[in-house]
């Protein structure tokens, strides 16, 4: 790390204030804007950080160019985790950290962080919030949607907190950032995988028709699977698709297509 880093104009870098970080948190509510399959979240990711970057580097066009360009690389993670990473990036920029290193941290983390973020926000917060709201809403009470909206306002603005967390993590020595993120991704992996394991039986529903029997005898097909291991079919389907992705590099659209064809076929055969 350079002692007393400067921008290309030779001016010393400025420090970000707490309100700059708060603003980053609010900006990043649009982190996923202009999403496309090409670069996914790169546009929003870059845009959100521009005000903070300008604060640090002043109006040096040269620096801004570099910054915008290297950030426009492919990027996709869970939005709250994106905010956290944005905080880390700005903190490292502020210290004049080598951009190779910043890129390394970002590219190494967005995948694993997506894992934890999705486990938390998509797969734990959403079903619990929805569960509570639905139980309130069942009889038509507006308390249901109001609670839902309320919780998600908090979840939305929690980005401010994630921005701060990321900023303070990023301010640590680079080495410590490494250790911290290693532990984080380790823990995240365990939590995420456990939750996904539990979601398989409740999210994926696939079962043979109740009345479907083997040609001979009256035992139903589904009962045999249940005898083997309840929910074995959802488990198998998830692993099958996982394998298609991982080993066969099939793309998502193709998989979705196959699923739909499979559904139609099963319906036609009257098997499911």
């Amino acid at each position, binding site marked *: 790390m350079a002692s007393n880093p400067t921008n290309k104009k030779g001016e010393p870098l400025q420090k970000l204030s707490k309100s700059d970080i708060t603003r980053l948190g609010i900006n990043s509510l649009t982190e996923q804007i202009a999403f*496309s399959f090409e670069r996914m979240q790169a546009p929003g990711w870059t845009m959100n950080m521009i005000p903070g970057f300008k604060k640090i580097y002043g109006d040096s066009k040269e620096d801004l160019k570099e910054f915008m360009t290297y950030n426009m690389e492919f990027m996709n993670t869970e939005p709250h985790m994106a905010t956290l990473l944005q905080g880390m990036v700005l903190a490292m920029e502020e210290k004049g950290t080598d951009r190779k290193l910043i890129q390394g941290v970002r590219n190494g983390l967005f995948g694993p962080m997506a894992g934890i973020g999705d486990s938390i926000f998509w797969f734990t917060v959403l079903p619990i919030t929805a569960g509570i709201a639905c139980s309130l809403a069942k009889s038509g009470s507006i308390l249901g949607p109001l609670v839902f909206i309320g919780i*998600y306002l908090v979840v939305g603005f929690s980005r401010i907190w994630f921005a701060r967390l990321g900023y303070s993590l990023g301010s640590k020595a680079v080495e410590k950032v490494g250790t911290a993120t290693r532990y984080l991704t380790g823990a995240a992996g365990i939590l995420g995988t456990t939750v996904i394991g539990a979601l398989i039986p409740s*999210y994926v529903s696939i079962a043979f028709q109740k009345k479907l029997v083997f040609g001979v005898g009256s035992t139903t097909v589904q009962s045999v699977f249940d005898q083997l291991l309840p929910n074995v079919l959802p488990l198998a389907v998830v692993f099958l698709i996982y394998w298609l992705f991982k080993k066969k590099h099939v793309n998502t659209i193709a998989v979705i297509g196959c699923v739909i064809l499979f559904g139609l076929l099963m319906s036609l055969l009257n098997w499911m």
Partner: protein
Amino acid sequence: MQLTLVQGFLLFIVGTICQFDQQTEAFYWFRPMVAAFFTGIILGNVELGVTCGAVTELAYLGMTNVGGTVPPDPLFAGIMTVVLAYTTGQSAETALGLSYPFALLAQGIGILFKTVYSFVPHKLDKYAAEADVKHFNGLIWGVTIFEAVFCGFVIFLCSYALQAPIQAFVNSFPTWVTHGLEVAGGILPAVGLAMLLLTTLKPETYPYLFIGFVMATFLKMPNVLPVAIIGTSLAAIDYMYQKRFDEQKAEAIDDGGDSDGI
């Protein structure tokens, strides 16, 4: 019951706002629970909106866009379930079934946009190379708002303008097709989960997948929170061991170094 033009227009506005939220994932107003609530207000039957929202929300819980995928659209499902329950007088459950084709339609639109918009980053690269923040931001906001308005307009069409022909088209589906799509819908969440496994599943985390699976299969839990609690507990236990491993190593190195003097 028929929708009035004003209601159709208000749905256009709500649809646009919620679709914008769906693109940014800022406040989760694109979830059926919220979208259906707003629709209920517009149609003057809040209770219907809330009830349909609850039913649809639960059915679409697994429909996430994890990993950038596009599932059958929860926003369209939320709005159209209320609209169809309102216009046909059917129950929330039946309306949920009827709204499924609209969710598929919107899924198609979503995929289209995210594919076509692949030209956007290339333009943005150019602006970035010139540090042209104004055009950079302008393009980003422009395309996003365009998609939102477009979807809002489709909602207007489906709910008001083209009500009759669209419904006719939908009704022309034979039962086996509708049912087949439902079967597929039950399986679709597996795509999101498999996608997620691509990032979280490693030799070290495999065991935990099965622990979660067995818990959910054999314990009666109201939701996934207890599993998340156990997952966090197991992660914490592992974290402590990993930390001790590292400390050990550090100490060993030190001690190894020190031991020279002995």
